[in-house]
């Protein structure tokens, strides 16, 4: 198995009542190389915490994360992370944002510039390479953030609601852009979203999480080839089912925290 989560459990202490709150409750998940997995769940269920654990940014949890046989213990460029708020460096131009990982690696300037320019070209951003992030549209900022992550050729790419703050037209464009990219590169992607349509359009598997404490409620396999019809019967059936599970989850009473 390529990426493996074993019995991930995350708790934190509520300082007001001095009680332990369980955020993630023993999640097991196996992901194969080249798969596109979406994680959907009610907001505040701990999806972001889960990504932070896998990326190595979060250290205080129980369980293990293995990537290609190696235990993840600290952030490293083998696990790429794309943030919802883009997290671009405002004082760097597009090109310098994209090449920063190579710069940290110690690659020569001319070399890393050439690679970054290749990404800028294939991402359809030529002519904007010397612009600063605030001069770019939301969609383009997110493409810069994706390029900055992919340029390191990570073994797995984590995406935390990357299109969450885009308008719906740009969001659709970005979904198609991401699909094209994936057909070409065959990256392994773990994609967190609260948008069910998006997950149905993009993923090989959809993992549905419960509300807090997060557990896996169900996993859907989708074998329809890409590019997908957003309104096909299969897509609609899955969408209906996922939405129904999430609705049940919202109205059910949460169990008392132990």
């Amino acid at each position, binding site marked *: 198995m390529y990426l493996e989560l074993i019995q991930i459990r995350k708790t934190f202490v509520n300082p007001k009542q001095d009680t332990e709150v369980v955020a993630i409750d023993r999640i097991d998940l196996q992901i194969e190389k080249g798969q596109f997995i979406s994680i959907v769940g009610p907001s505040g269920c701990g999806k972001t915490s889960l990504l932070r654990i896998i990326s190595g940014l979060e250290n205080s949890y129980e369980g293990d994360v293995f990537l290609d046989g190696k235990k993840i213990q600290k952030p490293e460029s083998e696990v790429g992370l794309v943030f919802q708020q883009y997290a671009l460096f405002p004082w760097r131009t597009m090109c310098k944002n994209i090449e920063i990982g190579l710069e940290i690696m110690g690659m020569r300037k001319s070399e890393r510039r050439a690679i970054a320019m290749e990404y800028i070209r294939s991402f359809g951003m030529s002519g904007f390479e010397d612009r600063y992030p*605030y001069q770019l549209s939301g969609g383009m900022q997110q493409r810069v953030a994706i390029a900055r992550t992919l340029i390191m050729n990570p073994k797995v790419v984590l995406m935390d609601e990357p299109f969450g703050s885009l308008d719906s037209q740009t969001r659709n464009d970005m979904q198609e852009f991401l699909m094209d990219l994936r057909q070409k590169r065959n990256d392994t992607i773990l994609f967190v979203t609260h948008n069910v349509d998006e997950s149905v359009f993009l993923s090989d598997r959809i993992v549905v999480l419960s509300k807090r404490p997060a557990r896996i409620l169900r996993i859907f396999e989708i074998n329809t080839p890409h590019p997908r019809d957003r309104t096909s019967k299969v897509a609609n059936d899955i969408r209906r089912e996922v939405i129904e599970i999430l609705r049940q989850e919202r109205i059910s009473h949460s169990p008392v925290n132990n």
Partner: protein
Amino acid sequence: MGRYLPLLVLLCLWQVLCSVGIVANYVLPSPIEVAAGFWSLLTVGMPPGHLLYYHIIYSLYRVSLGFSLACALGIPLGLLMGWFPRFHRSLGPIVEILRPIPPLAWIPIAIVWFGIGISSAAFIIFLGAFFPILLNTASGVSSINPILIDAIKTLNATQMDIFLKVLIPGSLPSIFIGMRVGMGVAWMTLVAAEFTGVKEGYGLGFMIMTARDIQRPDEILAGMFVIGMIGFAIDWSFRAWESSVRPSE
């Protein structure tokens, strides 16, 4: 051009009040007399032989000495305070006790420690500039969006990379603000520090105090305008420098 009209009216009014004798010219010399005083500062000097040009150079020299010292100490300390909360907490009380003491209140003890001269003037100016630089730098670091630090960590960054590629560029706007405020305070402090005496016989503050000693209000006022104009020029060049090194937002 219209916005300079009130200024022109004010100058005319001032001139008229003086010319008709409503205000005695030993209290308030007329604008023409002030201009003549300025000319005399340039050509004769105050005290005679000590030309304006040298006073300006000495003052700038004292300011740049104290100010550079304040930057050299305030920026690194501020970065450390912003990055290590524990360091901030343990340094905080010291800063909070020292900061409210006006720099000018340090003059007597500075003279005891360093004597009258460049060291005590530089020390006073250092104190004026140091705290704005320190505190603005620290708040600049702590205002950096933590997500940027997460982002660079996922790209294999070391502590050094985080420092050089995120903390310093990210807090640069605040550092600039601290430097500008610090420079403003330094310039104000300088003139007062020079009132108390300078060994070399040069300095703008010394110059206008000498003019007072020999009852030359025209040269006092001319000297005040020179001090103001230089302060303005320094602030302006800081802004120009700032906008040349950073993208505007």
